[in-house]
């Protein structure tokens, strides 16, 4: 019955298409939320039953039918529930349900209410297919499916040219990654003979030598797909622009679920990545570099959603960093806690934007704490969680990543991670202070309409806040035999976690030291933010002036978009134009028409002989006879 989990949202899509017009707003909202809520319950039941099984047997598959079979190639529509996909399915349906409920409030006044929930449910279907597929090809269905929904939802307000542009950009950048995914699949099938996880992972150690070119190429190509979907260097540029979409979309797709698909994929294929040390190194480095790079851009952004977008890119970097040093459990752990607190941050930001009549600029906010008490309280919880302050959820997962990085011996990556922590704490508290503390800087219009959000939006915020506080407790550090979350995932990552094993080899004192260090670093970032943005009103301006070059670079996001436009986009466009204008019109078609002209030319010459005058013909006749005589006379 596993197929029921993705099928429920799909059924809601079809029902919405067929009878949605007659259901009215309320009915559409109930249908959409109900389907996802039900999917959550079904998933929960399945997971509980999975947990009841002995540890070694915690893999359930459900084959629906054979999708395609040609020669020795075959791929099934088949779903898999194991501890890893169980975590993903619960996070996706659980957080997804809360965001659906929130959307009924947030989108209440939108003209295209029905279309919104249609896309949102379609997304749930695709995302659940992605995480529950038992083979690469079906995962790819979900993989491109979520990309499509992302495209549709970013461009949801399609009359805005910037939204349409952002949607297209997201799809095309993701497609570049997807080509990597496809080519990776081709290699895996050509050598491994199957795209089914279980079969492929079983033969992988025998077919691929450790560190061989083949497996390194294959995993790097898969990782290229992950950098597209999960917005890592160099394919991250679409995610900040994706903020053009409605805020619940940013929370669901561009923070909690879809963008984590790349992390999930790397964790899912950890068997392959562990055969390719170079690929794992690459993952770690790209992750660490992205974590710092995106965090630095986040320092200077003024749009509340863009700060959060760069923060998401940065946090995803941490997840990849974890995978790269072999700590897949830590990566998935952070994926889960991040889903809670980042969804909360976006929904909170949405609540702020909603309250301020669509104001997104941090410079025109401030002093909102007393006016939006619920939003403020929940946002504060999420901000503390992402900054890594104990005992909030983010602390546990981030700490685990950092100590794994340290334990793996990759000190440079660890230092980058630590640098990211201080930046994260700083930009998040900058956001918090600019929005909720200090003097109000609202426009008159916004001030007038200022109101706390309706219960449909506040309740999801409260639930996510609770999860952001408690979610980390499943994975406290320094547990004998690993913490509860690690033990749950152990059957999936069994035997694979070199780094995690090394992690436990780190002495207790060092471990405490690492924890203290990361907390101190986070507190330093927070303190700095309070100092600059709250206590000393002129400090921010002075800092900006003193570092004007750096500030401009960060504000313009290192001009990476401009660089891509000037090189890749212009190159493709220019080539296309010259292919058409010159090659196609002049050369290829010119040759075709040229053949025509040659024949026309011949006939034009030959036509001269066909004058129609008897005199001319008589002349040719006489000349011919004379020539014949001459010829005969010479012999």
């Amino acid at each position: 019955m596993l197929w029921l989990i993705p099928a429920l949202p799909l059924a809601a899509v079809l029902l919405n298409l067929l009878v949605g017009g007659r259901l009215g707003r309320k009915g559409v909202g109930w249908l959409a939320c109900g389907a996802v809520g039900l999917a959550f319950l079904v998933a929960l039941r399945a997971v509980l039953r999975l947990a009841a099984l002995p540890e070694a047997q915690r893999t359930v598959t459900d084959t629906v039918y054979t999708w395609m079979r040609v020669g020795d190639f075959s791929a099934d529509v088949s779903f898999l529930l194991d501890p890893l996909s169980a975590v993903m399915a619960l996070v996706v349906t659980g957080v997804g349900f809360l965001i659906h409920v929130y959307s009924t409030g947030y989108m209440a006044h939108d003209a295209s209410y029905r279309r919104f929930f249609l896309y949102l449910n379609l997304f749930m279907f695709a995302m659940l297919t992605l995480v529950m597929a038992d083979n690469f090809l079906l995962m790819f269905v979900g993989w491109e499916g979520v990309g499509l929904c992302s495209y549709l939802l970013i461009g949801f307000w399609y009359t805005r040219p910037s939204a349409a542009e952002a949607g297209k950009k997201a799809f095309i950048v993701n497609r570049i990654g997807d080509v990597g995914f496809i080519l990776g699949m081709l290699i895996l099938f050509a050598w491994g003979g199957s795209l089914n996880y279980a079969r492929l992972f079983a033969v992988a150690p025998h077919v691929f030598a450790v560190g061989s070119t083949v497996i390194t190429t294959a995993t790097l190509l898969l990782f290229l797909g992950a950098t597209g979907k999960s917005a890592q260097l160099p394919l991250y540029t679409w995610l900040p622009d994706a903020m053009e979409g409605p805020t619940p979309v940013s929370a669901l797709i561009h923070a909690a679920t879809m963008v984590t698909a790349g992390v999930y994929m790397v964790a899912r294929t950890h068997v392959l990545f562990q055969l390719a040390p170079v690929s794992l190194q690459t993952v770690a480095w790209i992750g660490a570099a992205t974590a710092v790079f995106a965090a630095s851009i986040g320092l200077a952004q003024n749009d509340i959603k863009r700060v959060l977008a760069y923060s998401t890119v940065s946090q995803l970097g941490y997840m990849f960093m974890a995978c790269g040093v072999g700590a897949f459990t830590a990566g998935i752990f952070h994926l889960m806690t991040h889903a809670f607190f980042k969804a909360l941050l976006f929904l909170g930001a949405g609540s702020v934007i909603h309250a301020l009549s669509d104001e997104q600029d941090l410079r025109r906010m401030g002093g909102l704490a007393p006016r939006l008490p619920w939003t403020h309280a929940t946002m504060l919880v999420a901000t503390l969680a992402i900054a890594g302050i104990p005992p909030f959820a983010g602390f546990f997962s981030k700490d685990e990543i950092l100590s794994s990085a340290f334990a793996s011996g990759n000190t440079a990556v660890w230092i980058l991670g630590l640098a990211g922590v201080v930046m994260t704490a700083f930009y998040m508290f900058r956001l918090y202070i600019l929005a909720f503390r200090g003097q109000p800087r609202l426009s008159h219009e916004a001030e007038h309409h200022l109101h706390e959000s309706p219960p449909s939006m506040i309740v999801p915020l409260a639930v996510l806040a609770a999860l952001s506080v408690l979610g980390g407790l499943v994975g406290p550090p320094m547990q004998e035999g690993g913490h509860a979350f690690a033990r749950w995932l152990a059957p999936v990552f069994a035997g694979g976690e070199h780094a995690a094993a090394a992690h436990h080899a780190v002495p207790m004192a060092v471990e405490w030291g690492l924890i203290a260090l990361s907390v101190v670093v986070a507190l330093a970032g927070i303190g700095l933010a309070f100092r600059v943005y709250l206590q000393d009103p002129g400090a921010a301006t002075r800092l900006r002036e003193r570092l004007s070059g750096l500030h401009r670079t960060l504000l313009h996001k290192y001009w990476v978009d401009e660089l891509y436009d000037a090189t890749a986009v212009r190159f493709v466009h220019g080539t296309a134009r010259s292919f058409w204008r010159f090659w196609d019109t002049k050369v290829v078609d010119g040759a075709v028409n040229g053949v025509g002209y040659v024949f026309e030319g011949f006939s034009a010459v030959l036509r001269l002989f066909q004058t129609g005058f008897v005199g001319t013909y008589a002349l040719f006749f006489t000349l011919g006879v004379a020539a014949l005589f001459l010829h005969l006379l010479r012999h």
Partner: protein
Amino acid sequence: MSKRTREFYALLLALESGMIGTFLSLDLLLFYVFWEAMLIPMYLLIGAWGGERRIYAAVKFFLYTMAGSVLMLVAILWLYFLQKTHTGVATFDLDAFYALPIAPATQLWLFLAFAVAFAIKVPMFPFHTWLPDAHVEAPTAGSVILAAVLLKMGTYGFVRFAIPLFPQAATQLTPWIAGLALVGIIYGALVSMVQPDLKKLVAYSSVSHLGFCMLGLVAMNPQGFAGSMMQMLSHGVSTGALFLLVGVVYERRHTRLIADFGGLWKPLPVYASIFLVVMLSSIGLPGTNGFVGEFLVLLGAFRAQPVWAVLAATGVILSACYMLWMFQRVMFGPVTHPENEKLVDLSFRERLVFAPLLVLIFWMGVMPQPFLDRMQPALDRVITLHHERAAFSVAGAPAAGAGPRAIITLPVGGGAR
């Protein structure tokens, strides 16, 4: 279609008979007759009901295709006399020709004669320039048939005739055909990207898609063949639907220029939604028909020669570029031309036309196995024939893959090598 309805439908039916005959003939002479006969109604359809440059387009279409077919006729006659001297039986029966041993040098010439005729029809780069002209000038119904069925006569010709009849020549020329197919995929997509005219954009996208078909064929393995056939079918559905969709707005606005549209989603939500689905099928989104063929072709190509798959995969990115950019300019943004605000959405009749196409798009994408199963025996036979005949008279034949060599040698077989 309002003027000269009677003649229009008569010609349309004649065209359909010609095409059905072409696909059903297992006798080379009969095949040739249908192949040529089908030109006449198409020529008249473009010439009489077409757009402004219809005469140029019709003549170009006719002469270009004709030039190719004449070579094929010569090759057919050659085969006939070869058969007669070899066995003493005077027949054009295809099965008899399948059993005929042909010297490699002769094979090369005969294959080329067939291949040029088929390549023009496909159309393969660089024989494609008649296609945009014919598409742009043809009436909507003509464009649909042209794209959906007529082009497939070329690829079908390769599968049914050129490859199994002349296996060694086919193997020998594989690198060249694959090269042209790859150029077609990338070149067609790039040229498509910068077209200002919707019909031309779709026409060039056909060049790109048919490149995938040809690449799958020359991969000469089960996945490549099946993928190629699926790609032919799904290209017929999705590109046919695209031409119908362009026809819908052309009927309303009498223009096909992308610049004349913009923001159409607002006045035409149903139309835009259908367009979206068809576009996604055209760019090969998994779950739609386009993906099955494209993926199998890539799989087959990769096993034959990894570089082919790598190059062809760029077509996956480029197709998203040209289609999405077009969709953005036509459907999204504010309505830029006031006359577009009053456009009427699809009528019940029009919706009825698209319904079966949408069903096919998802059916072939979600459950392709019934389609694959039905074509499997015929494709297996072609592959077996190809291998048997290639082995039958190998002496002196050049080794397979005389062109660019595989960068990596694959341990899992399944190719022609």
